[in-house]
């Protein structure tokens, strides 16, 4: 283990640390929002497939309802990109 205390750290080390934290933050933004989309979509998707089994022409509506929570992960991605690149 390398023991770095803030007082002894060089400017480069602090910057590298910050970069790492930003990367972790970006990862969390995408990962957590991805899980959230998944949880939301699994229930809708199951119900949509059930509805489609009854009436096949509901495919369009089912698809729309299923992908609505997908926007959550896009938000996560936008936040991640803003963190990493701006």
């Amino acid at each position, binding site marked *: 283990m390398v023991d770095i205390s803030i007082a002894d750290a060089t400017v480069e080390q602090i910057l590298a640390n910050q970069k790492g934290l930003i990367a972790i933050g970006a990862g969390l933004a995408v990962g957590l929002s991805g899980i959230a989309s998944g949880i939301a979509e699994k229930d809708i998707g199951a119900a949509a497939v059930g509805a489609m089994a009854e009436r096949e*022409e509901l*495919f*369009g*509506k089912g*698809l*729309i309802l299923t*992908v*609505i929570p*997908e*926007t959550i992960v*896009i*938000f996560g*991605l*936008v936040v991640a*990109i803003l963190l990493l*690149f*701006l």
Partner: protein
Amino acid sequence: MLKPKKVSMALLLGNKKLLDQAVETLHDLNCVHIVDFTEETDFLSIGRPTEVASDASNKLIKLRSLSNFLGIKQKYSDNPLNEKSLLNEFDAKMDELDSAVSKLLERRNVLENEIKNIEIHIHDLQPLSLFPLNIEMYSGYKSVSVRAGYIQGDHVDIETEIKNVTTKCDISFCAYNKTNVITLFSPVELTNAISEILERYNFSEIHIPELTGDPEKLLAGFNNRKEDIQSELESLENAISELQTRYSEFILASDEILSIITQKAEVPLRFATSENTFIIDCWIPDDQFDNVAQVIKDRFNTSIFITKLDIEKEEIKTENIPVEYDNPELVKPLETIMDLYSRPMYKEIDPSTIIFITFPLFYGIMLGDIGYALVLLTLGMIGKAKIRSEGLKPLATLLIYCSISTLIFGILFAEIFGFHLFGPHTVVLELFGEHSALGEMFSNFHALPILERLGREDIPILLIATALIGVLHLNMGFLLGFRNEVVSHGVKVAVLEKISWIVLQLGIALAVLSAFEYIPVVGKTVGAVVALLGVVMLIAGEGGAAILELPSILSNTLSYTRLAAVGLSSVGIAFAVNEIVTGMLFPKGGLFILLGIIVLLVGHTINTVLGVVAPGLHALRLQYVEFFTKFYHGGGRKFDPFGYTRKYTEEK
């Protein structure tokens, strides 16, 4: 183009004697959508099917049951059969087929029953064959009761317990299939006492078959017979598949002809009739109306009267008007995507032509790679040439459109399978060597790419550009919605419900521009006032709940950044595969080169499959969720002309 085909309501009226001929004529025309007559009055009643109807539908039922038995599937035929000759030989051929099939079926049933019996016998004989007794010895006694069956537990215990009851008995055990089999001969009067003991050891009786002889020999005989039956069943299956190939054309063609006959014979059920006349309510496309009227005049002179009704005067509900698309051939494949959602209403805008541009555009922005574009183009071309199913053909054409758009964006992004085509990192340099003329040429070409999708500086530009595309697309939706609302609810509602959103966006845009100091500071106040005006208009139009809708303008716009995001993930995967292969595997040489090629092939195949699915679904979603919700209702009825498109037969 942007509207469904214009149709008119028409009324046909004539003498009942001419009904058959009229049906024949309408069927030939194949462009008249008949409206079912449902409300019977004292004067008008629903028509009756013609006499051939029940005969034809009986034949059809029989034919379909045979077709079901033989497992006939719909297929493409390029050799249509003649209707007349087919009808002439129909009965004879049908009898022939019927008797052949019923013979096979009967024999199959007999054999299947026999094999079931044999299996039961085998099941019973197998444990008994372990004992040295003939089968007939297990039955036919007056004073001795015989038991044979499976039993669990230690046989010494069982034997002692039984011997405690009586010694006048004969017990044998044999191990069989992880359990024990017991045969027990005992005096009849002790049956109950012995049964109690046996039950404690989970005794389950074996049925003694009514046979005579050595069980082992019997078993061998049954096994032989079983094999014989199985091979006969196999030959029966072969005979069935032979019948299937021989009669498949006949069955498909007859099914078609009989369907047409029943369709014609049963259509009077949709007409109104009085004692001597018939009345047909129907929809005819405007461009065909004159033709229909002319044909009726030519064939019936003035005995059948046809007239156009005014839609406005008759107060027909829009949802009852059948909708037929009116798009150029190029746009037709997009109608599949429309139908997947819902057919437009008659008075609504039909957005097929708009998604003809935006769907491939979005797809191309997302995938944007020369290599994948060429692969998809080839797949699309093959699909278009090979696929004959009406349902799937448009999808192949759609794939071609999308791959062309992908190719264009691939050139703009200068990417080929995730490699750079131009600039200092060009793949040409790697392929042809550091100092090759071609490599120098490609590495010195700087006009492209317009955007480097994995470059640090360009990603924010891509994000903003895609959000702006979103703004344009959404506002196009609002304008179309404005037009639809004007037609259905008038200008005031249209302005309040749709233009309010545009005003709101304008306000936000002004405020943002002045915040970044592109315009004077006063823009902030002006923007806020304009945005507020938009909100007030919206609340006036849609009520207070509209406030809940406000954030959707942000989420909808940001949703378009998926155009950048999905693209990034696709480039990302391609880039990763390429890095693994060129950076890690190839430099090691030897077997690793082979491994590298495999990784390259598998990686890019997976990415191609993802490249069809992900951009396809996301491009579709942007249409359905973001775009259509701004203006589109759908729910139109399909224009379904009375007629039949023949596939397996021809009339003359």
